[in-house]
């Protein structure tokens, strides 16, 4: 009985150690998706009226706080809620659903 308890405690300790090691590593792996701002190069933007659909789709993404779109540069900038992530595939899907083509996606600081 005593031996079983010791083995159980060893198992718990091992699990805790494993968690402590893996958690920071996993956070490091997704660090590129944690950002205060995301810039997407969007092709096909020609007019404000059509671009409204892009704003609407990006706003619906969980974690998106503010959207700023520069039609001439073809850039959509998303200000992300602190502590939230938006995956690249979700960003591309939102742009496609709006009827445009997503190119480069850059994670970085929020625009002023």
């Amino acid at each position, binding site marked *: 009985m005593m031996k079983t308890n010791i083995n159980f405690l060893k198992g718990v300790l091992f699990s805790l150690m494993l968690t402590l090691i893996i958690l920071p590593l996993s956070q490091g792996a997704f660090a590129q998706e944690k950002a205060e701002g995301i810039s997407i190069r969007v092709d096909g933007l020609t*007019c*404000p009226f059509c*671009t409204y659909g892009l704003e609407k789709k990006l706003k619906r993404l969980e974690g998106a706080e503010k959207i700023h779109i520069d039609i001439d540069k073809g850039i959509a900038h998303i200000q992300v809620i602190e502590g939230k992530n938006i995956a690249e595939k979700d960003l591309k899907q939102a742009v496609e659903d709006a009827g*445009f083509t997503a190119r480069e996606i850059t994670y970085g600081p929020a625009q002023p």
Partner: protein
Amino acid sequence: MALKLSGDDCMGSAVVGIIRIFFVLFIIFMWPLAASAHEPLFSLGPRTIYKGGIGIEFKTGLLSKSKLFQNGDEISDAKDQAATRLVFSSEIIYGVTRDLAITAQIPVVYRRFEETISGIREKRSSSGLGDVSLRSKTRFWRRDTLGVQESAAIILGIKLPTGDEKVALPLGSGSTDFLFGLTAAHEGRRLYLFGDLRYKLNTEANNRSQGDVFFYDAALGFRPVLTDYYRPDLVLLLEMNGEIGRKDKFLGVSNANSGGEILWVGPNFLLSYRNLMLKGGVRFPVVQDLNGTQLAADYEGVVAVESHY
């Protein structure tokens, strides 16, 4: 609905029947299309509303006819005839997917006709619900580059006989008619180019059928000021619309005073702010090569407000 030939003597009835059945099945099961965004007022562009998007448009159109033409030439009209057609229509657009949108159009029509008989000015008018139509737009090709979108779409439509055709001035054709077409565009920050080909296949109802109509359209658009996303945006368009209509038929006999060719030209404007757009335009017939003796068009004007949600 009678699946009968209405205009083209050259086409086999079996082929036309198959085509019509195909359209009905396509519309029922796929239910795709829509008109939206920057596109000409009197024709259709390929752009579709975003997936899940809803568009609402209220449109007013006025068509005036007061010139009498005989075999393509204007002649004096002893009766001084004048016809006016005013249409208030509501359109609902829905984006099924990013490349597929549907539009339902519900028109309310007012028609008036005046003529002088034995020195007395006679006036007749009718008003009420017109023919409701459903359209689909399926974008099958798109190429995006920085500030440019080039695309092409297939248009399918069906017009239902909801308008009363038995009043003095019919508000509908009484027939179920079909529309199919192809549209393409180059849309840039500064310039727009649109082009489309459409064919309206009219069926027979009450032994009467309107002639089929072939449309060919082109438009050139220009944005004079490149404003950013958060400011009002103005686009000016010069539109050209061609129509080639076959003769109407009654009891299988062609009406010599129907059908012919019209070429329209006119300016449009599209003024938008975010999801709201005000648009308007007028077009004038520069060529009216009408069969027999017919009242010809003076002008047609449209004003509309469209909003996306």
